[in-house]
């Protein structure tokens, strides 16, 4: 549940919950600086565009793990929801395994790219930051995603996956469990350890 998410212990256990908001906050501030940059000629900040772009790329990779944790990746669930609960559990585990295979590919290929940047000593044009560092979220995101996928598979086996605890109304899947409870679409149940 999101009420405990600002607690330091929780953030250490769930790094993507700290990294993603910080990235987005820096993107927001950099975009504002960009506007001021245009208004005040003496304020020169050519690095903002580059910082925004790389952080956004990073946000996507870290966010993939975040969305696995919250089970909020977009999918076409029409046929899936027609399956009986037991079969849905099996199918969901297959989804998670396929997701894991894909993230291993991306993580490995990403790592190869980073190593080639290190070898060539490539830096970004405006920030002069090492390119491997700016693009490292691909590997971090892949590792975090793998961890989250394993965690979710364990949750399915332990019957603690909210999807199988709650009957989430069709069409409202994009809302968080907390919002669904708050707005009265579902009732909170014991055993929800999310």
């Amino acid at each position, binding site marked *: 549940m999101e009420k405990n998410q600002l607690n330091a212990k929780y953030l250490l256990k769930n790094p993507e919950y700290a990294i993603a*908001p910080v990235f*987005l906050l820096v993107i927001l501030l950099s975009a*504002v600086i960009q506007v001021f940059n245009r208004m005040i000629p003496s304020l020169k900040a050519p690095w903002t565009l580059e910082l925004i772009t790389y952080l956004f790329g990073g946000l996507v*990779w870290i966010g993939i793990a975040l969305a696995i944790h919250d089970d909020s990746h*977009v999918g076409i669930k029409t046929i899936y929801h027609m399956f009986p609960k037991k079969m849905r559990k099996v199918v969901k585990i297959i989804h998670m395994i396929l997701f894991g*295979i894909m993230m291993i590919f991306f993580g490995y290929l990403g790592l190869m790219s980073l190593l*080639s940047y290190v070898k060539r000593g490539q830096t970004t044009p405006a920030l002069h930051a090492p390119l491997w560092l700016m693009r490292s979220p691909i590997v971090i995101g892949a590792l975090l995603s793998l961890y989250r996928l394993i965690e979710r598979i364990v949750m399915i086996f332990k019957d603690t996956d909210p999807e199988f605890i709650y009957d989430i109304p069709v*069409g409202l899947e994009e*809302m968080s469990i907390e919002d669904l409870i708050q707005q009265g679409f579902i009732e909170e149940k014991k055993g929800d350890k999310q």
Partner: protein
Amino acid sequence: MIPVMSLTVFGMAVVLLLIGAPVLVSIGLSSVFTIMFFNPVPLISIPQLMFSGTESYVLVAIPLFVLSGVLMESTGVASKLIEFTKAGVGWARGGLGAANVLGSFIFGGMSGSSVADTVALGTILIPEMEKDGYDKGYSAAITALSSTLAVIVPPSILMVIIGAVSELSVSWLLIGGIGPGVLLTGAMMIQNYYICRKHKYGSVKKFSWKYLWDTFKVGLWALGAPIIIMIGIMTGFVTPTESGALAVIYTLVISAFFYKSLKKGVIYKSLLSAARLTAAVVGIIGTSSIFTFILTFEGLPQIVANFLLGITTNKMAIFFMINAFLLVMGMFLDAGVAIIVMAPILFPVALAVGINPIHFAVVFVLNLAIGMVTPPFGVCLFSTCNVAKMDMGRLIKAALPLYGSMIVVLIFTTLFPQIVLWIPTVTLG
């Protein structure tokens, strides 16, 4: 020549999509396997293709628009706007229905999400409409159908996605959505008036200048965010991304100092929501750059263009054929996903027959918006049914006449490019 790679990647993606796998996995895994099997490029090119998809300055507008919308909703700024629209049109016959449509035009534009719009407006207006003597099915129907305005008028996330995928100016697309948005709002409000008059839905109250002025004074601040976005883009003073950032800062300032509704933890929760949605959408764009590479490597868009041109060379006939196809796609696929997958294939066709790309992109989004409320799988139908706690059959029956406005607006917008192009041409040159 048979495009074997394209067929393989498409086939695998469709199978994975049908079994409910996340779209990111369906597109990503099928693309990786196809590249591994057919070897059109070395595997090491995959990260480069994905970086080019995700490191996009244009797409940064998405989390910022979402952030602004989530903040508006969680700090109660959105409800001030609803109150203002009610004071403006709620007194007349069918007034609450009209307020619903107008509220979607203003608030929906800010949230950028049709589901957020149906939930925010529906939870307030559906019970109120029912209490005022409206049929529950009709109240839900007008909420669902008007929520599609969220993806047509600025700041629409779908316009940002189609702009990024098709390499078009997002400013032109966002401003281009205003014309069809206004037309749809007008058409729905007129139809709502006649339906309510016929069925005697709702009460007629006395218009009150005082109520309008009181709600305007409060709502004026809330109206600032969409105005910042629109004026900022129209004047060319800021980019869509920067306009999103300014709208976020503005929302924070008015909710903290004017409405005093900024509660502890709201900013963090909003940042998380925006990050989550961004990853889900832009992650797909990242993997779809491999997917699109495979399709273009084999020239699939050209094959589709030649096939359609073999049937007819009439520009409008092809445009309407694409419209019909997109309407069906919109019924089954998430709108963002439909753009990511179909735009790279259909844009070359549109360009080949001489359709203006901005006009085509806006009509593309309009089709998908209609798909969101078309049975059997329209996502806004499901969310509205849950908000109104009613069955789908009743909602669809009540919604049937309202589909007429949407189809008429679609036909007009397809036939007359000026509806889309006039405002951006005047404002952006």
